């Protein structure tokens, strides 16, 4: 299978090129067929790859060609697939296929139909390169590729000014993170002399076998995390993601919920051997992640645009994933990533279905009672919301529960883990509340839309089928993660993060102390704890802790739902009056903690002033002025020299004679023995 790895990203790339070059003029309304088939083909190949890795338990590696060779620097284009890649491949190609199918219905009739189905497979190509790359530079290629496609697709409705602005914002904000990632890649190269992470000479092997100073590794980890902050919308660069909802809804579902935004998490998980040795960086990641989760959830509580609520929910969930990375719960982070991809894609596609049925209305205050008009959308949306809120036994429950347990068990600083866990639990409460605020406002209660103009209807089958499939996965996927930390998902992924050999030796070693299987997860941690680093010093997570956490988080989630029920269904609290009584607080949340305003005033505005100054004073006045002065001077010199050419042949002969005399005189004086 290894020799066919290249086909997986190649198929969508070919589809994209085909649609751009051929379908554009030949059959623009059927461009979706090629794109969907290509992505589905990639999915089938991914299944084969997954099966081979699942059976043989070894990584696949294909080197396609040498990319750059310059002095001691050498990088190849190589594809690498281990268990982590296999999981990402399945998720990406599966969700992509569904979104392509959905978009075939959603985008129908759009004048730029072919353009949409040129960029979307191009995005899939870049994303697949990102997850399959065998070195950091190729990851960066995919990373920038998905960023470009994101830009193109957010700005898809390019005639709308806000879409153009949102696209630019997403791109520019991401540049900040990319800059950090770029620096990180350079630091990796200067430290290890290679950018490839797989193999005997690879970065990871060097980290584990040779030992590198913790200080350097911490810097690398922080720089990589800077990249993730941009791409995975963590505080303080989260501001681009909600605006990215200007793009078509399938794009929001695929790029800004399921795949691209999780690239940062993937990068961190992929770099786990580096991160594990960088305790301080891990603590920073955990804290930033927990704060981002809370930030996103708090803003989501008061937004009225259905897609924005889901978008802020995405920010919040990405925060959970970063928290999981930060506390060393690697598998849980990936588990949540995949589970989130299913239910959040379902939520976005569901909102798309609602918007579609409501004639492009996005304000939930103008909806209500839609349950009876669009039953399939309602049920799938409800299931996905329950999963997002973390209700037993849906996918979101198991993954989120593991993260909170992992946070509780971590102790970078005394007590910090407990605070992180409690913070995450509060966030979980808010999550349940805003998800069900959305449900009650949209699907229940009185119908607040104008019956004369709006006639809600269920979406066509091509759109509801993906919803049903995704909802089914939102329910069933959790089963792979049961029992917590020991499910089949964990068995499959553990070798990536703990290594084959480590797995066997340390498991038995620690098992004697811990007498339960959870030692597998934290075996390395135990070692570190003894060494004094205390990365997540709790040697064990007991079954009792897991049970208690499960109960607590279930109670928390149900309470959130209950609060939403009381407020929005039973009207026990007058929301409008409450908001006006606490106007300052409400506005603070409604205006997204004033992040955009602060950035505008203290970063964007001074920068614009600076560029205006550079342009008008430095460039036009200084540089151009100097240049014109030089041109003037040169022209003057040229004019003077030109007068030497008198046109008189006697003058010409004189020049030759004079030249000869000067040369002879000079050389005789300087070099000959004539005057010695």
């Amino acid at each position, binding site marked *: 299978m290894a020799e066919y790895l290249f086909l997986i990203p190649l198929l969508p790339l070919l589809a994209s090129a085909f649609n751009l070059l051929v379908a554009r003029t030949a059959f623009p309304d059927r461009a979706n067929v090629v794109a969907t088939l290509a992505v589905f083909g990639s999915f089938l190949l991914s299944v084969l790859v997954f099966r081979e890795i699942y059976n043989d338990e070894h990584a696949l590696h294909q080197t396609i060609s040498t990319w750059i060779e310059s002095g001691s620097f050498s990088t190849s284009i190589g594809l690498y697939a281990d268990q982590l890649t296999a999981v990402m491949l399945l998720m990406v190609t599966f969700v992509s296929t569904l979104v392509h199918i959905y978009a075939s219905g959603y985008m129908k009739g759009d004048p730029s139909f072919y353009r949409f189905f040129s960029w979307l497979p191009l995005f899939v190509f870049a994303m697949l390169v990102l997850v399959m790359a065998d070195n950091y530079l190729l990851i960066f290629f995919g990373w920038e590729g998905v960023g470009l496609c994101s830009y193109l697709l957010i700005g898809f409705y390019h005639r709308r000014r806000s879409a153009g602005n949102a696209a630019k914002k997403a791109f520019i904000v991401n540049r900040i993170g990319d800059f950090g990632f770029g620096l990180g890649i350079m630091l990796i190269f200067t430290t290890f002399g290679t950018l490839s992470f797989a193999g005997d000479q690879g970065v990871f092997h060097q980290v584990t076998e040779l030992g590198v100073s913790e200080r350097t590794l911490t810097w690398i980890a922080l720089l990589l995390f800077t990249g993730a902050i941009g791409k995975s919308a963590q505080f303080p660069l989260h501001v681009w993601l909600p605006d990215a909802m200007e793009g078509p809804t399938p794009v929001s579902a695929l790029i800004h919920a399921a795949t691209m935004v999780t690239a940062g998490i993937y990068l961190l998980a992929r770099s786990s051997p580096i991160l594990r040795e960088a305790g301080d960086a891990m603590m920073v990641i955990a804290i930033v992640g927990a704060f981002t989760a809370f930030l996103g959830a708090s803003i989501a509580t008061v937004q009225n645009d259905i897609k924005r609520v889901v978008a802020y929910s995405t920010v919040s969930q990405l925060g959970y994933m970063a928290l999981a990375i930060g506390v060393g719960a690697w598998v849980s982070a990936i588990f949540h990533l995949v589970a989130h991809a299913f239910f959040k894609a379902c939520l976005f596609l569901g909102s798309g279905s609602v918007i579609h049925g409501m004639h492009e209305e996005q304000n939930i205050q103008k909806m209500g009672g839609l349950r009876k008009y669009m039953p399939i959308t309602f049920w799938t949306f409800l299931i996905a919301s329950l999963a997002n809120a973390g209700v037993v036994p849906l996918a979101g429950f198991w993954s989120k529960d593991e993260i909170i347990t992992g946070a509780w068990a971590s102790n970078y600083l005394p007590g910090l883990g407990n605070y992180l866990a409690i913070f995450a639990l509060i966030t979980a409460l808010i999550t349940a509340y805003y998800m069900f605020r959305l449900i009650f406002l949209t699907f229940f209660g009185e119908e607040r839309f104008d019956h004369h103009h709006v006639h809600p209807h269920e979406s066509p089958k091509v759109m509801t089928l993906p919803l049903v499939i995704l909802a089914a996965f939102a329910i069933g996927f959790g089963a792979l993660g049961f029992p917590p930390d020991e499910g089949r998902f964990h068995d499959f992924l553990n070798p990536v993060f703990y290594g084959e050999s480590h797995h066997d030796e340390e498991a038995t070693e620690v098992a004697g102390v811990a007498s339960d299987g959870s030692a597998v997860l934290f075996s390395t941690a135990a070692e570190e704890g003894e060494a004094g680093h205390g990365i997540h010093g709790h040697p064990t997570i007991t079954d009792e802790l897991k049970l208690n956490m499960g109960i607590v988080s279930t109670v928390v989630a149900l309470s959130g739902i209950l609060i939403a029920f009381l407020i929005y269904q039973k009207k026990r609290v007058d929301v409008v009056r409450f908001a006006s009584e606490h106007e300052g607080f409400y506005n603070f949340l409604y205006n997204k903690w004033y992040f955009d305003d602060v950035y505008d005033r203290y970063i964007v505005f001074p920068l614009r002033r600076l560029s205006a100054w550079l342009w008008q004073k430095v460039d036009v006045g200084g540089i151009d002025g100097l240049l014109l002065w030089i041109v003037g001077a040169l022209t003057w010199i040229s004019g003077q020299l030109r007068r030497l050419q008198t046109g008189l042949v006697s003058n010409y002969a004189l*020049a*030759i004679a004079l030249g000869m005399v000067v*040369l002879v005189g000079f*050389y005789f004086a300087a070099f000959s023995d004539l005057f010695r």
Partner: protein
Amino acid sequence: MDLFNLNFEHPDWALILPQLIVFLTAIALVLGDAFLPERSKFNALTGISLVGYGAALASLYWQRGKDDMTFQGSFRADGLTVFLSLIILIAAILSVLVSANYIEYFEDRVPLGEYYILLAFSVVGALLVAGAGDMIMIFIGLELSSLATYVLTAYARRRVESVEGALKYFLLGIFASAILLYGMAWAYGLSGSTDLDGIRAGISEAVAGSDYMEASVLLALLLLVVGLGFKIAAVPFHMWTPDAYEGAPTPVSAYMSVIPKAAGFAALIRILVQALGPLSDDWTWLIAGLALITMALGNFVALSQRNVKRMLAYSSIAHTGYMMVGLAAYQDGSVLGSQLGADGVTALMYYMLAYAFMNIGAFAVLAWLQERGKGVMLDDLSGLAGTHPLAAVSMAVFMISLMGIPPLIGFYAKYYVIVAAIEADMLWLAIAIVLMSALSAYFYLRVVFVMYFGQAPDASTSAPARTVATPLLNAALVIMVVGNLALGLFSQGIIDLGEEWNTALTLASNIPGVN
């Protein structure tokens, strides 16, 4: 060489095969012009010229790797001869292609046969210089080449500028020849030999063991450099260049911007490197200084020219400066010490080859336009991209190549020269080339700018376009555009061929008493 003890060995004709072929071509042209009917002259004489130069070019293949002399040492066949002949013959073929239609239709239908005959004898002269092993041979070759060129310059005899330019060229030319001959006399007096290797041996004795040189040696050196500096149009011996280039028929300008210059450089290399190599510490500084003022003056004055032919004349002076840098970077005794690029002499020869493709190309486009009723002023090129897109593209390629932008051949030419200068510890000269190239961008790109952004003249007011077919000129343009684009990419092979020039020094070192 003892003149009274000549041994009458048979000359080795095989060694002078290319020169012989071109000479026979010239004879054939004379006979053809005299006896062929008027109708078929154009085709026949053009054909004879092309076949002759082509055959000579092909015969170089068998000359490669030879390292021998004949005619009592006055003629040598070595790597230097091969490469210089290569440049001269390629330039000759391109010149014929550029000239053919122009001479047939323009400048009052001047006699075509004589044109080709003069061209052929000029080429013979240049080839003799390339293979000269003796001062006398160098002088004869140069004079043969120059005399033919004087006449060619005056070829548009009814146009006063043509005659004026030719006369200036001729008067100053004999002045310079006298100086050159005087220098040769001094060199002979010093060493007792006109043979290049003999001079080298004699000079070596003269300079050995002294910190300062005998004034006579220095005088010989300076007179030779001044005399040859005229031929290559180095400042301040360049004054004839703009007037002659501007006055001459455009194909002649193309021709004489390359072949007499190549002959001059061939003589410089033969004399300075082969004969006066031991003095290189002194003359490299002389050449370097002349190179600097040559490139500076050429570029500066080119800035304010609005006549494209005259601009190209000054640009040709500037390029002489760049080429001289290659010679200035010569290091005696460490001929093949270069790792990065080429040594100075190889860089110079590569530059000459590149220059033939760029400069003849630029003049060829002007000739092409003149044949379509346009002038050679900058304004005449205005809006050319709209009316004659292919001509505009070719001109843009030549201009950008002259400017030295990769991947065109002009860039590689400059690159090798700059590397050679840096390796010879003449960083200041390398920096000067770069700065001067930046300056030159102004007047080269102005041509491109005018062609692409200028307003095309109103078709009704301008002279009615003449529709002439110029198949040979078109072919030449295609060859040169392709050459500009492609030859740079294969520069390593050309450089390898060029580096065989140093076989010219091996014979000298085999002579007893030398080195």
